[in-house]
Every structure is written in structure tokens, then in C-alpha cells.
């Protein structure tokens, strides 16, 4: 019982240390992971898996309305993604580009593609071979968060790195 408590506290301290930089908007899914039992390896998934990527680096970056430029916060997340990709050189990824619902359908497909490409360009500039990264756009078709609110829209303007 006592050792379990210490284990939980230890995990708390570790996670707090890792997540000190505000890398995502409030409530962003790329932030600190929820606490569970004492440090289980399966919580962050197998090495090189999607869960491992999410735990180590964060799997997504966000964009301002109608924009595809990479913010400083996004830059930090992508730097960690690049580190992670270097650690697992056999992993290939697909960058999914998305838009919120406040635009027309075809333009949003193109905007999602532009966002995905913007992320790919950053990863390539950080040394990841372009052949390991493909892109796909879903425009406004696949919101991550439902609801017609600014909070939901901010979560939906995103590029998500998914392990193939």
C-alpha cells in the first residue's frame, strides 16, 4: 500500500516534469496523460506505436482559423515527433489534415491538405526522410470534437500524425 502510494507520487513527479511547457490549447488531447496505476508500460503503448507517439510527443498540432502556418507551440510538438521518428526508423506515418465546419467543403479539403503538408515540411526540415511521411486531408468531414462552439472548432483545426 505504501509502496503503491510512492509509485503514484513518483509517476506524478515524472509527468509534471515532462509537461511543464504549455504546448497545446487548454484541454488539448496532446497534454499530460491521465494518471493510472503504478507505472505500467502498456499505458504508453508498445514502442513505436500510436499510443507511444502520443505519450512521448503528442500526436497533433493545431491551427488558427483559416491558417496553415505552424505556431511556436506546434513547432515544439513536431520537434518531439521528429525525435521519436528518429528513434524508430522503420515507422512510417500519415499526417491527417483537418478543418473546422466554418468553411465550404472543397476549400476545406484543400486547406486540410495544406495543413498536413505544412507539418510534413517541418518534419522533413528536421531530418525525417520525406518517403516516411504521407499526407491525407479530411477537410471538415472528421471533427475530433463535436459541437458548434469556438472551443470545438479550435480542436478540429488540426493535423494529426498517425502511425501507419
Amino acid at each position, binding site marked *: 500500500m505504501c509502496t503503491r502510494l510512492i509509485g503514484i507520487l513518483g509517476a506524478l513527479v515524472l509527468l509534471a516534469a515532462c509537461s511543464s511547457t504549455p504546448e497545446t490549447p487548454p484541454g488539448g488531447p496532446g497534454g499530460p496523460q491521465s494518471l493510472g496505476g503504478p507505472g505500467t508500460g502498456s499505458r504508453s503503448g508498445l514502442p513505436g506505436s500510436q499510443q507511444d507517439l502520443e505519450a512521448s510527443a503528442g500526436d497533433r498540432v493545431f491551427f488558427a482559423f483559416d491558417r496553415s502556418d505552424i505556431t511556436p507551440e506546434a513547432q515544439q510538438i513536431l520537434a518531439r515527433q521528429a525525435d521519436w521518428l528518429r528513434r524508430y526508423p522503420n515507422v512510417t506515418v500519415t499526417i491527417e489534415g483537418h478543418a473546422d465546419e466554418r468553411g465550404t467543403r472543397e476549400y476545406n479539403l484543400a486547406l486540410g491538405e495544406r495543413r498536413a503538408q505544412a507539418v510534413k515540411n517541418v518534419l522533413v526540415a528536421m531530418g525525417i526522410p520525406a518517403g516516411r511521411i504521407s499526407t491525407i486531408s479530411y477537410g471538415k468531414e472528421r471533427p475530433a470534437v463535436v459541437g*458548434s462552439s469556438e472551443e470545438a472548432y479550435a480542436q478540429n483545426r488540426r493535423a494529426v500524425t498517425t502511425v501507419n
Partner: protein
Amino acid sequence: MTRSRRIFAGAVTTALVTLLYLGVTARAELRIDITSGKIEPMPIAIPSFLGGAANESQAGRDIAGVVSADLERSGLFRPLDPRSFIQNISASDAQPRFPDWRQINAQALVTGLVTTQGDGRLRVEFRLWDVFAEQQLTGYGYTTTQQNWRRIAHIIADEIYKRITGEEGYFDTRIVYVSESGPPDKRVKRLAIMDQDGANNRFLTDGRALVLTPRFSPTAQEITYLSYANGAPRVYLFNIDTGQQEVIGDFPGMTFAPRFSPDGNRVVLSRAENGVSNLFVLDLRTRRPTRLTDSQAIDTSPCFSPDGSKIVFNSDRGGSQQLYMMNADGSEVKRISFGSGKYGTPVWSPRGDQIAFTKIDGGSFFIGVMRPDGSGERLLTRDFLVEAPTWAPNGRVLMYFRQTPSDSRGHGGSTRLFSIDLTGSNQREVITPQDASDPTWSPLLR
């Protein structure tokens, strides 16, 4: 594969029915001017068509019902309540007792007859009468299979519309659209087709692959659309009669936003390469693509003019989403939208005189029209989200979809089709079995 026009199962043959001349004094022509804004709908009486056998008189009631509904929905006609009729029409070719119809203030009267031919096919005759001039205006006879009675009703409604307004009708048409179901973050989308009045709705795809933005061919029973089948967004052709689907935009990178050329032989579309989207035209016979734009921007939503000489499209090459015009070979690009806000989804009217579009300004969405040179911008409707206008073949009516906001649990949002006159009046919901978006209007089926 030949790009020939298909004669499909609903073929209808026509014969002009002899006009009855009743020697009468000249009078002002029975006519509606549909360009003049708010119109007082013309009172018209449409009694059930006559029929001897039970199936014939049933068809006679059904056809009169569909004709009435089409004309009423146009906003230009007011079919009178049959319970107010004084004369009981007993012969469709005899002169009506006009004073009876004048008494209930009918300006126009439609009579008809349904018979069965020796080969089992239905023969339907109708006559349109000018009640005050006491004259038959027009009349035709049609022959088709029993099951095809709806098409005859729509063809008759088009004839009446044309005779009274001077414009081609739009009732003998179909709509292909995207049928939607499920929560917003797990939306299931299927291509569906229906008559323009909502009848005969059927699904064309099974919902396993995301499908978007279908567009009718002007010359064949064919759709071009975007599908994520096989995990990659590509432009496809769908044959409505056979159900066969084939990819036509199989380049590396996403192809999307397809539209047919007016001759049906080419598809203009957007192709994404390295984050940039440019316009290409694809010859359907050779499958060879020709590049039209080479910008570092988003160029999308292209649409040919009805004469095929120009293309209007959507681009943010100037810094924001606007409408541009160019020659069909990609030369002489110029911007045509200059109002406040952003513009998208440009669609050229079949009459060539207007371009419809979606506009986003101050957080609201609008459906609007402008002349091809960009002047005369008029906004027809405004809402939380309205998008994707498509023109009826007579260039007088638009259909689009409207989406309402959803709450944080994803409830409350609905997506439905609506139609509206070019004048901005007569906005109506189009009834579909599920939620619906991305409508495309067929040409007249005849």
C-alpha cells in the same frame, strides 16, 4: 467506351393532341412573368384525370396530384381545392363549362384522360385551358409503361409551366445528393438519387466509403464525385444505370472538386500536390490531364460556363478565398468577387447569365448570385451554415443545403436540402429520408 446519350427505361413518347378551336375574342395572354419578384400565384384547377378501369382512374388521380404538387411548389401557381369545383368533368376533350370555372376564380384549367393500350402501356392525354378566354392553350398525349406514370405527370407540369411562364420547366428532373446519418464525428455518407419532388428515393452507395460533392453529367446517366474508397480521396465516375464506379483521377495526391464540361466529354477538377491545389481538366476519352493553373495557392471548385468557353473557380491566390474567372484553357485569369467576406462554390447558371455562390461574412453563411463579370451581387438567403448551390436546368431555381448548429454532445444539428427562387422568394425544404447535403440537379430528362 463511347460517350453516347443513354435511352433509359423511362422513355416516354409524345404526340400532339388536336387543339380545339372555339372561335373566341382576343384577350390579354395568360402569362406569368417569373422575373418580377413577388408574384401572386395563378389560381389553377386540376381535377383528377378521367379513367375508366380502376387502375386508370387511380392513375388519373395520382397524375393530377403530382402535377398540382409540382406547380404549387414552384410558388407560381395555386391549385384550387377540388371540393370547390362546380363542374364534374366527364369528357376531357369536350369544351368545359367555363362559367363554372370562372365562378371559382380559376384562371387556368387542366383536364386529362388515362387509357390503357393493347400492349398494356399507359396513354395519358392532357389539355390546358384558358378559362377567361375560353380557349385551349395546349395539349399532348404520352405513352409509357404503367410504372412510369410519375414522369408523365412531371412532363405535363413542365408543359403547363412553359406555356404559362414562357420559360422551360424543371419538374422532369432528378437530384443526386449525399444522404447523411450518424453523429457528427462518425458521420455516414451515401450517394442517393430521387425525383426532384422527393419520390423514388434510392441509395447508390453503401456508406462504407466517404463520398462527397456529386455532380450530374449534362449528357449521360452518370455522376462524378469524390470518394475515399481504397483509403485515398480520388475523383470517380458513377454510372447510375449499372452502378459501376471507376476512378478517373488516379494521380499521386488528392483529386477532388470535379465537374463535367458542357459536352460531357471532360471533367475539370482540383489536384493537390505538396499542399498546393491546382486545376486540371481530364479528357474522359483519352484520360489525359491538362494543367490549367499553376499557382502556389488553393485553386478549387471549378465550373464551366454553359458554352464551355470559360471556367469560374475559387482561389485564395490573392490572400483570401474569392471567385476568379478564366478562359477554358487557363489563360486570362481575373478576379470577379469584390464584396466583403469570403466566397466559394461558384456555379454557373445553365442560362449563362448568373453565377451562384456561397459567401461567408461576419460569421454568417449566404447563398448569392452575381453576373459573370462580378456585378449585380444579390444575396438570396442567410443562415448559420448554407452552402453548395446547384441550378435547376431552367436557371430559375436553386437548391442548396442548410446545416444547423449542434451542441457539445453533438445533438441538435441537422443538415437538410432547400430550394429557393432566383428572386429570393419561395424558400422550401426538400424532403429526404435522412439528413442531406451536396445536391446536384440533373438536366431535363427528356
